[in-house]
Each structure stands twice: as structure tokens, then as C-alpha cells.
């Protein structure tokens, strides 16, 4: 076998091994991946919800920072935990497993409580404006029926 052919063979084997490794990793993670400096992190979306047990082993002390996004219409919360390895998880806000999870349970509880408080203040604000017969915000007059529709749904 020529030197060139040997190099091709080594390259081919390496590429195949890499592809296999990545394939196995994708299957193992099971929820897809997202690229990020330094490697891939697990990511879930609303269609591929993962169980809270995904976070087994993560302890609050390892959390450097986190961000969460509540989608009230879908009833889901997406939480990004920035730690030694970043984790993105989307869970149902009514999933009892998540609500009692030692890591994300408190995060979800805090977020839901804040959302409740802000919703209440906004509803009071809107009710006052609607009572005046005109809802004008940021120099723009809103359609009062649409304001009422929003209030009926969320207040």
C-alpha cells in the first residue's frame, strides 16, 4: 500500500469513527444538541420534553446563573442553567416531578410567583384604563375590545 493510500485509509477510518462517535452521542443525549463554544450541550424543545431527572447530579451550588422563560399558553417553562456544563430544559409547569425537583423546583416556584404578581398589577392597571373608556399607551390608542379579550383570558 502506498503512503498516500495509507493516509487516505487512516483519514477515512478517523472520519468514520468521529461520525460514529457523534451519532452515538446524539442518540445518547436523545434530545438533540445545540452548538456552543467548547462543545455541545443538551437541548430540549416543546416537542421533545425531557424529564426533570435529566438534571440528576446538578446541585444548586454549581449553578453560576440561570435564565427561565415561561410560556403560559403552552404551559411550559424553558430553563437554561449555566454551570460547569450548561443545560437547557423545557418542562411542563404542572409536572409534579419538576415542581418538587431540588434544583429546578425552586426556580419554577419563584418564576411562577413573580409572574403571578406582575400579572395582578398589570390587570389592575388595565382595569383602571378600561374603566376610563380609553386605553392609550405609548401615544397609541389600543382597541378596547382587544384589551378586554386579553383581560378575559389572563386576568
Amino acid at each position: 500500500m502506498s503512503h498516500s493510500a495509507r493516509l487516505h485509509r487512516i483519514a477515512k477510518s478517523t472520519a468514520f469513527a468521529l461520525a460514529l462517535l457523534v451519532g452515538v452521542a446524539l442518540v445518547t443525549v436523545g434530545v438533540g444538541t445545540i452548538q456552543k463554544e467548547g462543545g455541545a450541550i443538551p437541548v430540549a424543545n416543546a416537542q421533545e420534553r425531557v424529564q426533570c431527572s435529566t438534571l440528576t447530579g446538578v446541585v444548586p451550588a454549581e449553578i453560576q446563573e440561570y435564565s427561565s422563560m415561561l410560556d403560559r399558553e403552552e404551559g411550559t417553562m424553558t430553563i437554561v442553567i449555566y454551570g460547569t456544563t450548561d443545560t437547557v430544559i423545557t418542562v411542563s409547569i404542572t409536572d409534579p416531578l419538576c415542581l418538587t425537583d431540588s434544583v429546578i423546583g425552586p426556580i419554577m416556584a419563584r418564576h411562577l410567583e413573580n409572574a403571578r404578581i406582575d400579572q395582578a398589577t398589570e390587570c389592575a392597571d388595565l382595569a383602571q384604563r378600561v374603566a376610563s373608556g380609553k386605553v392609550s399607551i405609548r401615544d397609541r390608542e389600543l382597541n378596547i375590545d382587544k384589551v378586554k379579550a386579553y383581560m378575559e383570558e389572563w386576568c
Partner: protein
Amino acid sequence: MAFSRWRLSSTAGILLAAFCLGTAPAASAHIEGQYGQRGYIWLQYYWNGTIWVTSTDCNNRELGAYDRILSSTAGKPEFANRWSDGLVLVQKRCDGVVGTQIDIKIIYEDVVASWWGYNDSDRAPSSWCAMWDVPHPCGSHPSRVHIKLSSWQNHGDMWRERLIMHETGHSLGIAHHCADDSIMNTPAGNGPACTEANWTDVMVWKAHDRDAHVNVYPNWKGP
């Protein structure tokens, strides 16, 4: 035939390896929207680019941070086609109350945790977008910035302004970025930023921060 197969498997291998090792452009690496459509304020960009903030403790460090954000975004080439006047954050209310018009709420609170601050956002429901005559999804309403009060009190003015810039960056839709100096560097524990620079070495939005921000709102068409 053999060569074609080799070329195919090699290319696939290289592409897959590149995907997993994270060789994407820096900007795309800190687009928060890729993390499940979270943490961005879309609606106000249909208006005039002004972001209204309520705070439980309006202070000069917030104002300092807003000035820094404005000066490092106004007139920059990345923003030329969109927010040429820069990002304008306004201290609209000082009672921490979220009215319909508020985009970001800043809360200073006592918590037992290792982090300095965090961010949580509520995705605006479709009836809220309809109220403003914009299509759903139309961003977050509101986005909250939580500041750990004890850390805030133990640090100086520069550190505080940096933290406000970082957390409002999350509210605007940008994720962490560790490849270069960035306003979105992760705080490394209680030490320096993840690039090992001092936390306060970066006090402006960098070009790749602006790039990332522009890419968070790809369909933005202007007011």
C-alpha cells in the same frame, strides 16, 4: 467509487465534528433565541426601539449602564439598518410595578445563592400581541432581572453597571459568550469573567454582542 465514498464520509465526519466542537461564528453562539425562543423583547422594536424599565430601586448605576449600552450601540455599523440611534433603555417607573407598557423589571432582592443575578421572562401570549396589532410571537412581557442584593452592596460602581448591562443583555435575547471578551461573559463563580479578564474590563457592547443582538431579531422590519 471508493474515492467518492471516502470523500463523502470524510466530509460528513468533518462537518459533524465541527458541529459538535462548536466552530460556528461567534455571534450565532450567543443568540438566546436558539435556546427555545426565550428571553427577547420583540414588541418594542416595532415601535421606536425604546425599552421601558421599572425598578424596585432606581439608581444611578442603572442609568450609567443604560448610557454605556446606548453609547456602544448608537451609530455602530452592525446597527446601521435597524437601530441606528442605539438601544435606549429608560428608567420609566421606580416602583417595580409592571404596567402594560413595561418591558423589563429590575428587582433587588435578598437571596441565598451563589449567583449575582439572573433573568426570567414571560412569553407574551397571543391575545397580548393581538392587543398591539402585531403577530404572535411578539417577544417577552415582561422580562425580569433579579439582582442579588448582598453582592450588589459588596461591589463598586463599575461592577454594578457591568452586571446591569449583562442581565439586560439576557432580557434583550443574548446568551453567554466565552470565546472573546464580551458583555455576555459568564461570571466565573465569584472571580473573573470566563475569559479570565476582570469582570469590569469589558464595559461596552462589543461588535459580536451587537451582531448577536441583530441576529436575535432576524425578521425585524422597523416601525
